[in-house]
């Protein structure tokens, strides 16, 4: 008898959800609260911010003082994961640069994100420039779900009435910090609009929710919040859903494929347990993928059968295609006006206090679509790398006696420079719309499997002139804001040789579009409810269904779409359509 066996569970769940991030968490939450018996499979380990967050730790509590050696966003960051995972490779072809960030933990990548929560606007769903396909839904279709997400999870912001930057149902925003007023003044002179930020942090209590407490302003959302004051899928969706008694969570369950019946309908999921390395199969009436845009595409492409020879939900051949991540470019420097500033606690909250929504008309520009600007600065908690620029900056400004001195140095005078320059830093980062292109894609690499024997993804991605010209515009804008605010730029001035500092795709971690929705089954994988055209009991609830991302961060739209899909599932069940 062979040692190899597949353990099959006799339970038939109403739904099996793959992935516990924003999309999977929301689908599980809605269905479990409606009384459905749901199984949630998460590839990573259990994580509850209440017990596992490194919130309020001091730098000396980390032997590497918060450096990013083992975690890309630093030793206290909440994410178990990164752009490289041991034993889980991905490959690239045709000189592609693409970096794929994966979190392996309950809540997925919602544990470390910036909590910046922007709605996509009417023109993001129906672009007027004809460059990319329309979504099969309009802003008005999704607006009620954005509203519900706002009320349920909590978001701060201000009502501004900007057409393509729709307002939500907002809690009060945090007050600006000193560097943010300098930015506001400088940006206005440079012709750039600055408004209060919009983030998934509770600045006040949510009526009827006793599990979560409002923000206490430590500025550390990326470490996870022990009082659940911000949004992560674990604290706000999965753990409350478990508490209904209707949701079972299995962690360390790395999904291999979706199993289908002879008629092509989905029957269940096969997975390998990361700890015991045994094979398992679970059965459900519905399968809902929320493993992330690329991971869900990988599962579908690996789910081949006689009914679905091209991979599941892929008779159109679009699965994996139209992959796009936000564009990104940065500039940083410091404000000499703030030398020797008064010291006080300005941690604020861990998302943005201010930002610049896209403010220009593309008819007058040499590139389509736009970007928003996120700003940073202030008296932050020191961590590894602290003061690294001081030995250069001290040669750029006069000393206490008004004299210029040589950069570098040591001793008492250098020690004084660290104090004088602390809290003077300022930075800006653009996040823009990348065009969804059929030719930017992920596919199965026929030659490579990961340590579980699952065929891996291979990426093909190229930036085009639209994105490069946008990055050029970002650089010019940032430099002009820096100049108007009297800041000294310390970052490298990026030119055409580096695509104006345009970061490699995947670096912004907003990748979307690989399982796109549409009305035409020959050009899309999913219908407008994120239900597979080819398989009626299969749904996708991550960022795979996006037809075209705006310059807005993807999370709030993932949440709204997933809620809409889950409610559609419930209504279709009622009508006995699925």
């Amino acid at each position, binding site marked *: 008898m062979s040692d190899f066996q597949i353990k099959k569970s006799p339970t038939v769940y109403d739904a099996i959800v793959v992935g516990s991030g924003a999309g999977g968490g929301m689908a599980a939450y809605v269905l479990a609260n409606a009384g459905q018996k749901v199984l949630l499979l998460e590839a990573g380990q259990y994580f509850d911010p209440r017990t596992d967050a490194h919130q*309020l730790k*001091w730098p000396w509590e980390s032997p590497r003082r918060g450096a990013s050696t083992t975690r890309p966003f630093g030793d206290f960051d909440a994410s178990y994961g990164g752009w490289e995972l041991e034993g889980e490779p991905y490959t690239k072809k045709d000189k592609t640069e693409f970096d794929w960030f994966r979190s392996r933990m309950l809540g997925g990548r919602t544990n470390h994100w910036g909590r910046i929560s922007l709605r996509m606007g009417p023109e993001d769903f129906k672009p007027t420039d004809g460059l990319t396909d329309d979504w099969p839904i309009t802003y008005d279709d999704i607006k009620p779900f954005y509203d519900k997400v706002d009320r349920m999870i909590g978001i701060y912001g201000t009502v501004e009435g900007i057409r393509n930057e729709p307002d939500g149902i907002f809690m009060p925003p945090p007050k600006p910090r000193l560097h943010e007023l300098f930015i506001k003044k400088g940006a206005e002179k440079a012709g750039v609009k600055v408004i209060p930020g919009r983030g998934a942090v509770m600045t006040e209590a949510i009526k009827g929710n006793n599990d979560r407490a409002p923000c206490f302003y430590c500025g550390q959302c990326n470490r996870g919040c022990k009082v659940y004051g911000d949004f992560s899928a674990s604290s706000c969706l999965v753990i409350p859903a478990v508490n209904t008694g209707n949701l079972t969570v299995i962690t360390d369950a790395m999904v291999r494929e979706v199993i289908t019946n002879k008629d092509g309908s989905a029957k269940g999921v096969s997975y390998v347990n990361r700890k015991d390395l045994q094979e398992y199969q679970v059965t459900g009436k519905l399968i809902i993928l929320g493993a992330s845009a690329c991971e869900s595409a990988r599962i579908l492409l690996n789910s081949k059968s006689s009914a679905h020879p091209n991979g599941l939900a892929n008779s159109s051949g679009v699965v994996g295609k139209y992959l796009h991540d936000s564009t990104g470019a940065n500039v940083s420097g410091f404000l000499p006006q703030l030398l020797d500033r008064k010291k006080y606690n300005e941690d604020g909250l861990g998302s943005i206090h201010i930002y610049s929504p896209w403010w220009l008309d593309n008819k007058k520009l040499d590139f389509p679509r736009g970007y928003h600007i996120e700003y940073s600065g202030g008296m932050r908690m020191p961590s590894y790398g602290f003061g690294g620029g001081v030995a250069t900056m001290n040669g750029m400004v006069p000393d206490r006696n008004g004299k210029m001195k040589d950069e570098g140095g040591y001793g008492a005078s250098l020690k004084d420079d660290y104090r004088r320059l602390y809290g003077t830093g300022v930075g800006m980062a653009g996040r823009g719309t990348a065009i969804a292109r059929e030719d930017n894609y992920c596919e199965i690499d026929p030659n490579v499997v990961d340590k579980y024997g699952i065929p891996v993804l291979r990426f093909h991605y190229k930036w085009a002139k639209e994105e490069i010209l946008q990055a050029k515009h970002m650089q010019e804008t940032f430099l002009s804001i820096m100049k108007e605010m009297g800041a000294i730029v310390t970052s490298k001035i990026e030119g055409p040789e580096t695509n104006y500092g345009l970061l490699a795709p995947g670096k912004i971690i907003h990748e979307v579009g690989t399982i796109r929705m549409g009305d035409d089954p020959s050009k899309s994988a999913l219908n407008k409810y994120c239900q597979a055209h080819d398989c009626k009991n299969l749904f996708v609830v991550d960022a795979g269904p996006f037809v075209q991302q705006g310059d807005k961060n993807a999370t709030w739209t993932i949440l709204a779409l997933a809620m809409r899909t889950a409610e559609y599932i419930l209504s279709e069940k009622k009508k006995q359509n699925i």
Partner: protein
Amino acid sequence: MNRRDSIKALGLTALSTTVLVAACKPSGEKEEVVAIEKEAGREQWETDRDAKLKAETFFTKHEMATITILADIIIPKDGVSGSASDAKVPDFIEFIVKDMPEHQLPMRGGLKWLDLHCFNRYEKSFIEASGTEQISIIDEIAYPKKAKPEMQAGVAFFNKMRSLTASGFYTSEMGVKDIGYVGNVPNQWPGIPDDVLKQYGMEGVKV
């Protein structure tokens, strides 16, 4: 509450996995067994890796003595706070070069360059040189734009040494206090203090 009960209370996240790591002590050459607890909010491989790095030694005694003198030249004691070695910066540097092996060669080679340069000039290693002699050498490598081209290797080493010293000092309890960072506590954010708004003429600026 005993340990077992507290682990139960913490629930799923605190599995009491115990991993054995054999740490080889150079002195007695005896194998010591260290038990590692599952740490909340850490993956097991991270905890294991830290324990392994802490059990290893990279710098020799001579190198550590040189690092200590250099760190204290960069950040000496003054009226506000203690020196780099008071804040245990050399221990941090010992750890960080194991954590980030890319520092190892430039640090080891740089220390060697420094000793050789010092020997050629004073026929002494850096730690054996007098304070005045040490400073005369540091002055040649501490100012990148002023340094002579033949000093470039020393400049590159001193830049790294200075960065690591600042990282280590300002992330210590002493350094955080010195720099004036007063956050990392539960509180409210009432906005910029009035006197600060006035100082910068920002009273009228609204977002």
